[in-house]
């Protein structure tokens, strides 16, 4: 199978035997569960668009391993152009789904591992890179969705992994066997975990020799024995159970996160890509983080949706020509396109790593993500400003449908003469979704903490800001002795 269709992807998930819990109960069928299904549909979009001629130029790539056309989400970047297309793909899918489509994290894990396995082998003579390429080919040939699992539960943040009172606060090896390693621990905030065929585990912090049991990276099927998923809650999530759809805001798509437990899971050796080489943990973390910070190109696409919704509600309310409203919408565009500049810049300034994989400019990727921790909040504030308070005071769809109350809603929630009240309610609910409902999980808080919280980016910026050159230039221009 070269590339799966959206239907084939959905069917492939039905074949998995995942152990998933939500609201304290086992979810036997995740694909059709009303809370989870919109997130599956968002991933399915990554498959659907790859088959559309009008998007294949971005959505597909040629595998450097096989020469076959593959979904870009399984590609290891072979050029700056590949990196640029990745950013554009993020914007496209963010705009088409209005949410997190979950598949970038696996792509970023694959790319980071393609670099780091090569570097470990170069130093230690290990077989990881060859093993990784075999795995990559398997992922590409079967067009799999991978969950890239990095963030451990971390316990006491002031202590390294080996000093935690509970050793399971970081995923670690508990037994080495002939047929593989046994691992225990948990990964938190796992976006799209139950929509994934595979799970790729990486360490979450830089490590020393004493942490070697924690310096592990591996991949395995998401339904391997003794892996357990506990679904995260989202603001307004149970609206999806109400049957009506206006109140969900985004009536087509959504996202999800899960807590993933590794309860003494056996990982066969052919899926192990790092084993106790603790000095490479930070390289894997930083490489994955840089790619993943670039991936926040998706928020530009979601921003497109929110800006489109804001313009629409301004028109529906009859205020679109007010100068301050126009100016606010210009400001939203300014912020959104500034984000776009960052994700394109870090790709355009990319470079080749010794493995042959192309990596983004790390400083610019961090600048981009740091902007993402701020600008969507301002865009959301402006959206709520323009939309008005009805975003949070509007009665439900049930009230609109009710024989008793529907007539009053249609009368008193009507604004522009030509716009049905229902349409006004729909666009307001979409703004609610993106700024404080299920969509805000990804558009706002995930923008803050996903791929690392703001301080993580500031640390990377501090490391790479090339202060010496800036000081040299300043001293030269003001004639400080010895600077010429």
């Amino acid at each position, binding site marked *: 199978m070269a590339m799966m269709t959206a239907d084939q992807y959905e069917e492939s998930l039905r074949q998995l035997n995942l152990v998933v819990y939500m609201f304290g109960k086992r979810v036997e069928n995740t694909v059709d569960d009303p809370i989870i299904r919109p997130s599956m549909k968002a991933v399915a979009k990554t498959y659907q668009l790859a088959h559309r*001629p*009008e*998007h*294949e*130029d*971005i*959505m597909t790539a*040629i595998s*450097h391993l096989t*020469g076959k056309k593959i979904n870009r989400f399984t590609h290891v970047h*072979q*050029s*700056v*152009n590949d990196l640029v*297309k990745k950013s*554009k*793909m993020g*914007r*496209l899918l963010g*705009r088409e789904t209005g949410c997190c489509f979950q598949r970038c994290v696996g792509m970023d894990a694959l790319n980071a591992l393609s670099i780091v396995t090569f570097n470990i082998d170069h130093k230690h003579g290990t077989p990881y890179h060859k093993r990784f390429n075999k795995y990559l080919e398997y992922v590409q040939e079967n067009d799999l969705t991978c969950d890239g699992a990095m963030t451990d539960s971390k316990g006491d943040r002031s202590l390294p992994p080996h000093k935690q009172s509970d050793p399971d606060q970081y995923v670690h090896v508990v037994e080495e066997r002939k047929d593989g390693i046994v691992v225990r621990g948990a990964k938190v905030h796992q976006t799209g975990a139950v929509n994934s065929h595979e799970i790729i585990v990486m360490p979450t912090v830089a490590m020393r020799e004493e942490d070697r049991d924690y310096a592990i990276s591996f991949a395995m099927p998401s339904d391997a024995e003794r892996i357990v998923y506990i679904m995260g809650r989202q603001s307004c999530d149970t609206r999806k159970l109400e049957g009506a759809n206006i109140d969900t805001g985004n009536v087509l798509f959504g996202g999800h996160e899960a807590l993933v437990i590794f309860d003494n899971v056996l990982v066969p050796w052919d899926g192990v890509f790092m084993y106790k080489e603790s000095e490479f943990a930070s390289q894997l973390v930083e490489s994955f983080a840089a790619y993943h910070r670039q991936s926040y190109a998706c928020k530009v696409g979601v921003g*497109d949706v929110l800006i489109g919704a804001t313009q629409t509600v301004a028109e529906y309310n009859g205020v679109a020509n007010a100068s301050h409203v126009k100016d606010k919408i210009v400001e939203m565009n300014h912020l959104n396109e500034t984000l776009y500049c960052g994700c394109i810049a870090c790709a355009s300034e990319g470079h*080749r790593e010794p493995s*042959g994989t*192309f990596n983004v400019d790390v400083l610019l990727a961090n600048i981009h993500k740091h902007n993402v921790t701020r600008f969507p909040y301002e865009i959301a504030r402006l959206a709520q400003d323009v939309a008005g308070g009805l975003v949070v005071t509007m009665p439900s769809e049930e009230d609109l449908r009710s024989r008793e109350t529907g007539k009053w809603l249609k009368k008193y929630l009507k604004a522009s003469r030509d716009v049905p009240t229902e349409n006004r309610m729909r666009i307001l609910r979409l703004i609610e979704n993106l700024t404080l409902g299920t969509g805000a999980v990804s558009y706002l808080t995930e923008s803050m903490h996903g791929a690392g919280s703001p301080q993580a980016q500031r640390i990377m910026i501090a490391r790479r800001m090339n202060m010496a050159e800036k000081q040299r230039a300043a001293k030269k221009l003001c004639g400080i002795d010895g600077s010429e």
Partner: protein
Amino acid sequence: MVVNRGTLSIGIKYCGGCNPLYDRVATAKKLEQKLRGKAVFVSPDNEELDLILAVQGCSRACADLSPFQGISIQAILRPEDASKALAHIIERARTGRRSSSEPILLSHVHREMRKKNDDISPSYARLLTGR
């Protein structure tokens, strides 16, 4: 796809559509309707192509045209370009020859493409070009 003699076979190649400034698919469909009987739109992977219609969403014009060296390219960068493309294609269908104003993949375009792909490894370049 079997194409009747006298009917142009036009490979339609879109850019990826990351942030298009107009509806590329609707523009191409309209053009296809107007060319009914004179041309058929086929996949750009088709082996026998008279022309490539490159439908670009913006002036960045990033659709990868590198597989189509030596084939005439008619580009649409905005909806207004469609009428120009229509006239060229009708003329081409009528005469069976390239019109003098019909652009082909020019050397500067080749240079741009090479520049775009300058950074790729020789082995990957061989995979992409089949050479």
